[in-house]
């Protein structure tokens, strides 16, 4: 159980300090500052153990959030809570920054009181929280008793994430499939490791208590259906399975509104959505990933004082699609004394402070290629050890899901109100981003 929660600024000054349990002393605040924030070498591990006290931290820009405990807690739970906490704060006052935290410290303490009780995480659904934790203090006077009891029954009830009586003139929903693709490739183009971690984020503006059903091209579902239909229709299915129509999901997690029993038995995803934005599911795939870009490096050492680098990137998707925000980062040796870069497209620059050449291209269509060549001058050193040649990394954004995931349907039923599935306006968007996308050189 979480014993306490602290928020620090980048200097290690405490902005928020909330202790839930007696076993966490005041010195814990300082221990984290001294051993993690001000540590001599960078602390990589998100979990630090200091004097039998565990500190779990996440960093948002310059702000450190640290949860402290003396007990043997589930670390995944603690991090889930910390991320949720970040989400809640963002939902209340926007970007998490030192200034915002200082301006909203009363609100944050109020939130911390609500979402953690004696160290046990409670309801952290923003929608539900917003009904009773508000930024306008006087509003509670206006609230009628009825409203108050309604909130109570909602928060304590079975469907805590949605209140009754929501009405929209236009029923609308937005589905975002956000994926990040991670890759490590050898210089020869062999994939050493690759996976996609994705999220389905839904923004719903629906009236009443709608029952939704979400369908995608999950391999198990497709195969099951395929079998079912194969008995009846036979041949027609053979043609359909030839393309890349189904994907194998390695693991997935759902928002609490999804009925897991139904997913376990029929693998169908049905739920009553919270109002507004929420993350419906998270998943990971490792098979049959579409790699949007291919990086072909060519590094040649000319004597001890010169290095020639040529990097070709090839886009590997439909020509009609446009990739955006492309950035290639080519590391340079530590004894670089000068760099000359020539590139056909985009802009390239040697950034000494990062020891890398950064090549930026605004957008690039599919099935194209582009290249950069650089001459790096080196300063001879008396250091014998060779340059380690860190991998070339890449950032981009593409308008499709590299895992191949497709939304097949999202059906909405609201038996009590007079709108049907067809009346709902649905929007689907796919965004594929790069995670750690590296090619060795």
């Amino acid at each position: 159980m979480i014993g306490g929660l602290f928020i620090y600024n980048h200097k290690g000054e405490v902005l928020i300090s909330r202790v839930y349990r007696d076993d966490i002393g005041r010195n814990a605040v300082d221990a984290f500052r001294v051993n993690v924030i001000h540590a001599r070498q960078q602390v990589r591990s998100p979990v630090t153990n200091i004097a039998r006290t565990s500190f779990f931290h996440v960093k948002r820009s310059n702000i450190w959030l640290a949860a402290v405990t003396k007990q043997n807690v589930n670390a995944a739970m603690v991090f889930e809570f910390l991320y949720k906490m970040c989400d809640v704060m963002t939902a209340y006052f926007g970007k998490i920054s030192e200034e915002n935290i200082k301006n909203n410290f009363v609100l944050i303490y109020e939130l911390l009181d609500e979402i953690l009780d004696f160290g046990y995480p409670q309801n952290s659904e923003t929608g539900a929280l917003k009904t009773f934790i508000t930024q306008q203090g006087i509003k509670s006077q206006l609230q009628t008793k009825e409203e108050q009891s309604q909130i109570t029954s909602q928060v304590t009830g079975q469907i805590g994430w949605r209140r009754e009586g929501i009405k929209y003139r236009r029923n609308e929903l937005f589905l975002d499939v956000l994926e990040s693709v991670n890759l490590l490739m050898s210089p020869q183009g062999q994939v050493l490791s690759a996976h996609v971690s994705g999220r389905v984020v839904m923004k719903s503006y629906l009236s009443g208590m709608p029952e939704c059903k979400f369908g995608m091209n999950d391999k198990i579902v497709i195969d099951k259906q395929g079998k079912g239909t194969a008995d009846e229709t036979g041949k027609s299915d053979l043609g359909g399975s030839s393309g890349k129509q189904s994907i194998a999901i390695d693991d997935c997690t759902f928002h609490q509104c999804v009925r897991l029993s139904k997913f376990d038995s029929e693998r169908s995803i049905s739920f009553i959505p919270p109002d507004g934005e929420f993350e419906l599911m998270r998943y990971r795939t490792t098979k049959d990933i579409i790699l949007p870009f291919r990086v072909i490096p060519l590094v040649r050492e000319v004597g001890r004082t010169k290095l020639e680098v040529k990097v070709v990137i090839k886009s590997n998707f439909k020509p009609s699609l446009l990739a955006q925000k492309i950035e290639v980062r080519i590391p340079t040796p530590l004894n670089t004394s000068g760099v000359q870069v020539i590139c056909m497209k985009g802009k390239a620059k040697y950034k000494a402070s990062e020891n890398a050449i950064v090549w930026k291209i605004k957008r690039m269509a599919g099935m194209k290629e582009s290249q950069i060549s650089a001459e790096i001058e080196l300063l001879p050193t008396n250091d014998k050890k060779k340059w380690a040649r860190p991998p070339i990394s890449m950032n981009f954004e593409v308008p499709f899901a590299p895992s191949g995931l497709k939304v097949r349907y999202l059906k909405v039923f609201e038996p009590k109100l007079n709108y049907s599935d067809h009346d709902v306006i649905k929007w689907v968007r796919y965004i594929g981003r790069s995670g750690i996308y590296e090619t060795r050189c």
Partner: protein
Amino acid sequence: MPAVSKGDGMRGLAVFISDIRNCKSKEAEIKRINKELANIRSKFKGDKALDGYSKKKYVCKLLFIFLLGHDIDFGHMEAVNLLSSNKYTEKQIGYLFISVLVNSNSELIRLINNAIKNDLASRNPTFMCLALHCIANVGSREMAEAFAGEIPRILVAGDTMDSVKQSAALCLLRLYKTSPDLVHMGEWTSRVVHLLNDQHMGVVTAAISLITCLSQKNPEEFKTCISLAVSRLSRIVSSASTDLQDYTYYFVPAPWLSVKLLRLLQCYPPPEDGAVKGRLVECLETILNKAQEPPKSKKVQHSNAKNAILFEAISLIIHYDSEPNLLVRACNQLGQFLQHRETNLRYLALESMCTLASSEFSHEAVKTHIETVINALKTERDVSVRQRAADLLYAMCDRSNAKQIVAEMLSYLETADYSIREEIVLKVAILAEKYAVDYSWYVDTILNLIRIAGDYVSEEVWYRVIQIVINRDDVQGYAAKTVFEALQAPACHENMVKVGGYILGEFGNLIAGDPRSSPLVQFNLLHSKFHLCSVPTRALLLSAYIKFINLFPETKSTIQEVLRSDSQIRNSDVELQQRAVEYLKLSSIASTDVLATVLEEMPPFPERESSILAKLKKKKGPGAVSVSELEDGKKEAGSEINGGGGAESAAAASNASTPSPSADLLGLRSGAAGIGSATGAGSLLVDVFSESGTAATASSGTDENFLRDLDLPTESSDSLLVDSALASDSTPSSALGSEDPAPALPESDELLHKFVCKNNGVLFENHLLQIGIKSEYRQNLGRMYLFFGNKTSMQFIGFSTTVTCPGELQSQLNIQTKPVEPLVEGGAQVQQVLNIECLSDFTEAPLLNIRFRYGGTLQNITLKLPITINKFFQPTEMASQDFFQRWKQLSQPQQEAQKIFKATHPMDSEVLKGKLLGLGTALLENVDPNPENFVCAGVIQTKALQVGCLLRLEPNAQAQMYRLTLRSSKESVSKRLCELVAEQF
């Protein structure tokens, strides 16, 4: 000299540093540094040459980045270039970079050395100083190789500036400390010594550090410095405070130089030249006089400087230890400091007094301050000062004030700091033992000690009480009474229970007469503590119970009841269970006689160095109390307990003050004692084993444990052991550890006698080696197994043993053996088998010579092998008639050997029987008309002939005398056997 921070200060550097200071996070700092590094790289790479200023600036930046903890792998070349600049600032930065960053195996070292050489050869003193500082800062072996020859020349050259001389002297000192083998003073020696006469005080101060260090290594070469140092010192001491303008520190003339001079003089014995000595004494007197003068300033610096000189002078006086007048004055001066309000002064005074107390001249003077010191012990706020006070009390203690000091320390113990309690306990224990005139006082003191600070009383302390009580008949009764009373306290410490259990078990009978301490009361008292004790104590108590059964047969049923109870006989602890079972059986099966033998009173412990003293030494290390002082204590302790009398201890005391010759003497004595103790314990052990059979193994086990603990050879006595063996010989050649086998240890005859009646046991033991023996004989043949155990953790190299038969023994005894492995690993044991054939009867014993190298020194030990004529005995049973018939047949005077002698051991018939059987003969029962007498018969088997032997032993219990008669067919056999057997009783 232009300073870097002024005017032309590097703006770029300042901007860079302020940038880094303003970085908000580690990442930002790293980014800034990376950027700067890239910039510097491009600058260094650039085709056009950089001017000196920017080179200096960038090298400075690199240095700053390096000092922030980042790796720097370039810029060395630029730094080396800076060395050849003519500007001071540039040169200085270059040297700075090189001292910090250049590692010794760099390729650049040649270039650097070249630049340094140029600077050394230049006439510019600042450049020379910079170069010398760089050499000293790097101080590597390479530097020493390159410049060790050059620097002495600079140091003594007539035209070198004073500041350069100072740097050169200190630089040379540094090189000498890192690689002494490369610095050869040789022809420079006398000129370096003459630097003491230099006009410039700074040069003298620097040179004296060098000379002190050098003279510690080879004092002879620098001997001439004594007179120079003395004259210099006298000039400083006699100068007025205004004479040495720059070198007067708060009205004290050249305090650092004075201290260094006094320290240098401490490297040498007192000067032989009368004039020099007189001058020195004068100086010391002046220093002591000045201490009495009123201070010239109230500033603390003034008194600090003055006292520093004073303390150094006092330690010189103590070092010389030859001027009674000065010693007493020093002591009085320190006495004044004892009550000074400065804690540091009090501490230093106590510390110096500790060493003063060991000097014969000032011992009495130190004693006059006893009240102050005791007061310090009680009231001092600082624990380290209290500790010194305790040390001093220990050092100043002698017979006249022992009672007072011990009482004070005991009373202090109740409130003492936990960290020093154990040490005080040890000290009290030692003092009580050392100066005990009256042993009841000793027993009282130690029991008090256990009562007050039981937790801090180590095993050694209570072992020692028991040793002393057992060895002194006159205190046994008193001890028994005292422990009995002490045990009556409702809560007493476990150590008290141990002492009580042991002493009552041995001497409970001495107080059993009193109805208040009747046997049953004693037993109940001990048993009431039983359940509160740990396992080892319980084991000891069980042994005490079985001894009770022997002492007081009336308690037998009660004790058997206790032993039989489930909590004993089924105890989960194996040791306790075994003891309970075996003691129960022993008490129910064995006859009273057997019981009496098995549970006999413990024999007196052999004398040796007090184990407590060794413990204290180990604890303190080379501490405040000097070694000679401890040796002195040891000697006194030994003679005291031996009852050696006052004359001897007085001689020892006077010896101790002159260090070297008496140390040997002491070593010899303690070494001999060590051997005696080790073998004594060993033989006792085996006696118990061979006589009392299985039932008694447990009881012997206890004794063994107990003895082993007591007999842990103490380091100091044993390290002298081998030396003493060598030194005891009169011929000098063997004393030098040459190839000749060392003559047999003086104790080896004694060792031989231990083995007359038994075949197995420990022949020899010291701190390195233990030799065990196992042997068996049949007819005229024998086989002996020698076990050489390496007790150390290092290996013995070149281990070899030779068995020789001196003189005519060669024709009488035939011994064959194979050589042993020359390498004995630490902790390992090697075995050697000797095959022995007895050709004819013999009197001498063969010699065993052992030689090996341990840690580079040759060890050479010679022992007599315990092969005696009686080993070849065949027992012969015969009836009374036959015996007398034969007895009469051997009636010629030369066939008989007779000896009348006093008993050295208690006359116990069972023990006698055992020994006679061990001799190898048959013990004939019902032969002699007098049942007290023993009669034995046997045949000695040799290859040449068989010799029949008859033996008659008539003990006279009243007179404690024996008459031993031996008759055999050969005169020499009778005589030899008679000698051997007589030693046994």
